[in-house]
């Protein structure tokens, strides 16, 4: 097969990715196997959401519905939300507490415990000698499909892969350090927002790793004369390229971070002025000067601290052009009411209505719409080089972390893309 007839995506590189990856159903299906069910740990939720035994939360790994639970002995478990009998959804709620530890499929009342083990089957022996299952029927062989579960710093992850190294190794020392930074003390959930984008999940994964767009797409700060050119910033990338953490700190010195008006760069001074600056007020609460921490953990979660907002953003791919973003907002467990109100005010900045970032949802959809029918054509990801470096500082004039994402992605998907290409499917 020569280059002209070769059906594309297999030739992708971290600097030039075939647009087919956003549109091909075959690639989407292969991603479920090679990425979400492959050699990765996927975010399932926060330990704080499972504070008590019996607590559960419905979640996803890729497009597979999964339930994460805390069993009566305090251990955390995760299983595919699909009854071993007929495949029906077992747990129909988003979250809750199953005090008796039993999850019962409504269809035929097969009952499972919080670990996913089948513990009850109605009329297993039939009724008055009629019907029922054979003597060979073994409940232990009909449990729910379970995931391996591990936690780090308050985050719960699961994997379908039996051989992958422990979560700590998957995250690596740099990512662990920054997760611990945000989860420095116990957290409490403040709420959720769910955002549905008509775009591919990888467009959002790129977006959260793209430092180049920050000051160009998001114009809230410059509009209000808040452009902090003198800030210190860095983008760190894990070994395989999978994960990234961006940090922006106030400059060393005497700038008053509490007053953005004073800090604004005069050359960039916008004509508008904020009427209520409490919106932006930042109260450093971690022993450093970092006001922005955006950490993208491959393949499906972003951990953030922006001003005093704390959140995870879980990426759920429902289809080639259907991506759900689940925002879980939290504070620290010891926050008083006034601190919580301050976080709620800061939350105006982020999320689906975020004044400094709502544009991300639009950018994802624009790229999806713009690449329709563009299979065989490629993106151009060479800002700041054509390699993947472990560190890029200052960041903003580069796409180092985006290349990192593609390096990790293509490492997991390379063979699958080649196979699909050989079959002429993608």
């Amino acid at each position, binding site marked *: 097969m020569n280059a002209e007839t070769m059906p594309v995506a297999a030739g992708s590189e971290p600097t030039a990715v075939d647009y087919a990856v956003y549109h091909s159903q075959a690639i989407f299906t292969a991603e479920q196997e090679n990425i979400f069910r492959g050699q990765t740990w996927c975010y399932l939720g926060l330990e704080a959401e499972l504070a008590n035994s019996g607590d559960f939360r419905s979640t996803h790994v890729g497009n597979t519905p999964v339930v994460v639970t805390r069993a009566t002995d305090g251990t955390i478990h995760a299983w595919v939300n699909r009854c071993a009998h007929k495949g029906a959804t077992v747990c129909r709620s988003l979250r809750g507490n199953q005090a008796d530890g039993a999850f019962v499929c409504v269809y035929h009342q097969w009952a499972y415990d919080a670990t996913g083990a089948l513990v009850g089957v109605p009329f297993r022996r039939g009724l008055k000698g009629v019907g029922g299952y054979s003597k060979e029927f073994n409940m232990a062989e009909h449990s729910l499909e379970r995931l391996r579960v591990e936690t780090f710093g308050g985050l719960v992850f699961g994997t379908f892969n039996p051989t992958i190294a422990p979560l700590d190794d998957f995250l690596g020392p740099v990512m662990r350090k920054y997760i611990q930074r945000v989860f420095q003390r116990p957290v409490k959930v403040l*709420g959720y927002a769910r955002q549905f984008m008509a775009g591919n999940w990888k467009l959002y994964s790129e977006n959260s790793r793209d430092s180049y767009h920050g000051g160009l797409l998001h114009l809230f700060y410059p509009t209000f004369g808040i452009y902090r050119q003198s800030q210190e910033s860095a983008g760190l990338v894990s070994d395989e390229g999978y994960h990234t953490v961006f940090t922006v700190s106030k400059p060393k010195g005497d700038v008053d971070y509490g007053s953005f008006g004073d800090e604004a760069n005069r050359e960039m001074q916008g004509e508008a002025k904020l009427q209520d600056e409490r919106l932006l007020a930042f109260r450093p609460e971690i022993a450093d000067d970092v006001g922005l921490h955006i950490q993208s953990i491959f393949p499906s979660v972003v951990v953030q601290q922006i001003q005093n907002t704390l959140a995870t953003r879980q990426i759920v791919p429902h289809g080639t052009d259907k991506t759900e973003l689940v925002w879980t907002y939290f504070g620290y467990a010891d926050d008083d009411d006034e601190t919580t109100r301050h976080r709620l005010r800061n*939350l105006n900045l982020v999320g689906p209505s975020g004044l400094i970032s709502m544009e991300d949802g639009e*950018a994802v959809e624009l790229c999806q719409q713009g690449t329709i029918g563009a299979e065989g054509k490629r993106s151009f990801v060479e800002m700041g080089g054509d390699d993947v470096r472990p560190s890029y500082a200052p960041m903003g004039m580069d796409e180092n972390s985006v290349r990192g994402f593609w390096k990790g992605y293509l490492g997991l998907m390379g063979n699958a893309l080649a196979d699909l290409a050989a079959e002429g499917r993608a």
Partner: protein
Amino acid sequence: MSVAAEVAQVAQSAIDDFNAAYGLCLDDDRLEQWPTLFVDDCLYQVIARENVDNGLPAAVMYCDSKGMLADRVVALRKANVFPEHFNRHLIGRAVITGAEGNQVSAEASYVVFQTRNDGETRIYNAGKYVDWFDLSGGTVRLKSRTCIYDTLRIATLLATPI
């Protein structure tokens, strides 16, 4: 009939008129007028029903001053990028839920339809307003409006107020 009940009766038509005008103000893109529908010391929130039902406070918009409402409008006009769209509010008759002095609490169901450049009109956001109105001085203004949305899945993003 108690005094509070009498106030509530008088308030019914005033609040229904207010809500109709509120919806048209937003849908006609008169966003700069929107903050004037609130008292200075106001609270405006747009919050998911799943949070309210679970006692969780996080809202996608949380403005606890009129200035913060105005800031959001300036941001929408000058800074934010979002799909071009028209919104259309349908607001049901208010149910008065209480009264204290010159203030009346009420709830009303709403639906916001959204039409984007592809021309299709979609149900964008459905929910209810939980409000406190200030009726002093012969005018109706919002002391607080909490938009509790059932439509947990926000399509793309939520830029213009509900």
